[in-house]
């Protein structure tokens, strides 16, 4: 999959920007705050039907305007073209997503059609930060590769919020809400165990992807691995029904504690996924360099995983990744991604790219200044 061209209208600070994209590297240069990242945001919007950064569509509309639009022409790996049009109206809150001039009724059906892999320095919290960051990583990969997962996840989140409300009210009024909770428990267990089974299977499958990516980056005798650590023991059995059964038992067992704390303590929203090198936990024992390598390996693994599952090469979005790397590492990284697929790279630095890439049809370089794109 690659983007042939993209037009942004009143999207962030881009009043009307048009970009004819190269099918490999697209280097987006410019100073801070000029609107480089907004281009990546628009690409992520096409893929996920919402912004990567903003939780609210209204902030994306250019200040003083009421409607933002994105138009893009996508080309699949086997050459089929797709026309995308997205529009959002601030005054009515209405959002329209159409593919080949046909309005999409269910936005979730788009996810996974145009897979992306996103890298930014804040992203590196996946290895440094708390378990929520790692769950987010898993959710994004799984949602793109499995539509049912995405829908189960959004239902599950709603159920947890309703359930927490009941528990919190009960904590406040000191009553026993069991009759009110039961219908939500059933859904919590149903959606929750489906999510858990998929996450567990994913972690098992993903090991080899991360292993082969890691090997490409360093030739040390380091063995990376991942482990799925759910909020309760799912038993040794590989059987999916066991997760369901154990979930039920755990809900009963934790009931008193949930009442005391007023929130849901059991389920995939409390999962941990631990990363290891040679069996030692990355978060506790790894060096900065190992963290970085592990992070890049995760992302490359994600690329190949999505490529296989979505049967389409994902588009890579690299936001300001190169400022963190020394010249040598930056060149290595560029050589590595150059052959993968279309990539959008934002940077403030001009020098590194000229050394490695030759610009023309495949690789393009543009400068963004005050919401306008100029071909360099």
């Amino acid at each position: 999959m690659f983007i042939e061209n993209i037009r942004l209208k009143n999207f962030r600070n881009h009043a009307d920007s048009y970009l004819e994209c190269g099918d490999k590297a697209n280097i987006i240069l410019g100073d801070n705050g000029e609107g480089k990242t907004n281009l990546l945001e628009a690409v992520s919007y096409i893929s996920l039907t919402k912004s990567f950064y903003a939780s609210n569509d209204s902030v994306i509309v250019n200040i003083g305007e009421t409607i933002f639009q994105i138009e893009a022409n996508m080309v699949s790996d086997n050459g089929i073209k797709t026309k995308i049009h997205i529009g959002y109206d601030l005054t009515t809150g209405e959002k329209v997503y159409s593919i080949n001039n046909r309005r999409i009724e269910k936005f979730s059906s788009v996810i996974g059609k145009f897979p992306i892999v996103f890298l930014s320095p804040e992203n590196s919290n996946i290895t440094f930060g708390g378990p929520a960051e790692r769950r987010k990583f898993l959710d994004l990969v799984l949602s793109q590769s499995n539509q049912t997962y995405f829908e189960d996840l959004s239902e599950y989140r709603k159920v947890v919020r309703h359930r927490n409300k009941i528990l919190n009210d009960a904590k406040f009024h000191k009553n026993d809400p069991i009759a009110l909770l039961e219908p939500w428990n059933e859904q919590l267990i149903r959606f929750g165990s489906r999510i858990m089974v998929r996450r567990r299977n994913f972690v098992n499958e993903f090991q080899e992807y991360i292993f082969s990516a890691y090997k490409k980056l360093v030739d040390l005798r380091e063995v990376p691995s991942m482990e799925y650590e759910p909020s309760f023991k799912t038993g040794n059995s590989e059987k999916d029904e066991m997760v369901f059964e154990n979930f039920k038992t755990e809900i009963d067992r934790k009931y008193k504690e949930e009442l005391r704390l007023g929130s849901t303590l059991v389920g995939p929203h409390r999962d941990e996924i631990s990363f290891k090198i040679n069996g030692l936990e990355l978060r506790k024992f790894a060096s900065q360099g190992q963290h970085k390598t592990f992070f890049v390996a995760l992302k490359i693994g994600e690329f190949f995983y999505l490529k296989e599952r979505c049967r389409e090469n994902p588009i890579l979005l690299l936001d300001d990744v190169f400022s963190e790397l020394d010249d040598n590492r930056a060149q290595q990284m560029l050589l590595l991604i150059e052959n993968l697929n279309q990539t959008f790279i934002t940077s403030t630095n001009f020098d590194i790219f000229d050394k490695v890439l030759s610009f023309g049809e495949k690789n393009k370089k543009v400068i963004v200044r005050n919401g306008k794109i100029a071909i360099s």
Partner: protein
Amino acid sequence: MLYTSESLELLVEELAQLPGIGRKTAQRLAMYIMKLPREEVVNIAKAMVGVKDKVKNCSICSNFTEDDPCLICSSPKRDGSMICVVEDPNDVIAIEKTNEFIGLYHVLGGSLSPLDGIGPEDIKVKELLHRINENTGEIILALNPNVEGEATTLYLSRLLKPLGLKVTRIARGIPVGGDLEFTDEATLSRAIEGRVQI
């Protein structure tokens, strides 16, 4: 002042309170009303006040009605042994359009939604239990296929089953005239989950 007339401004304000109508649409509607002949405006106003004055909830099924009990509840042609439970009056209209269902309805007036502060006492659950008698054979739960509707379905089935009633729910799945290959995965997986023996 934004408008040159206070009453015009008031009208825009009031119209903008309606669901799905923003300030711009409210303004457009207000301008349109301004241009209408006086008697037509009076007709609109009368119709609005009329529904408030005349329409009430049926004391049996809670559906909107002018006569109590409503036309459906008082009809001798309807099968009183079946009660179809729905969330709101719109759902009754939808099912009535099919001309397939000959039983009675029960309008809950919403679904369980703790986040919105809606519990069993805020919807017509008690009223449903009240109207069940020896004639009642089957309760059909026809609530929306979202987590709130599902929670309500589960809650009601737990209350109703011990009464020895036949409790059913409407099927979820592939729309009629639809194509399997174009059905989204989530709907398809629910349809497989809810498969029936033939």
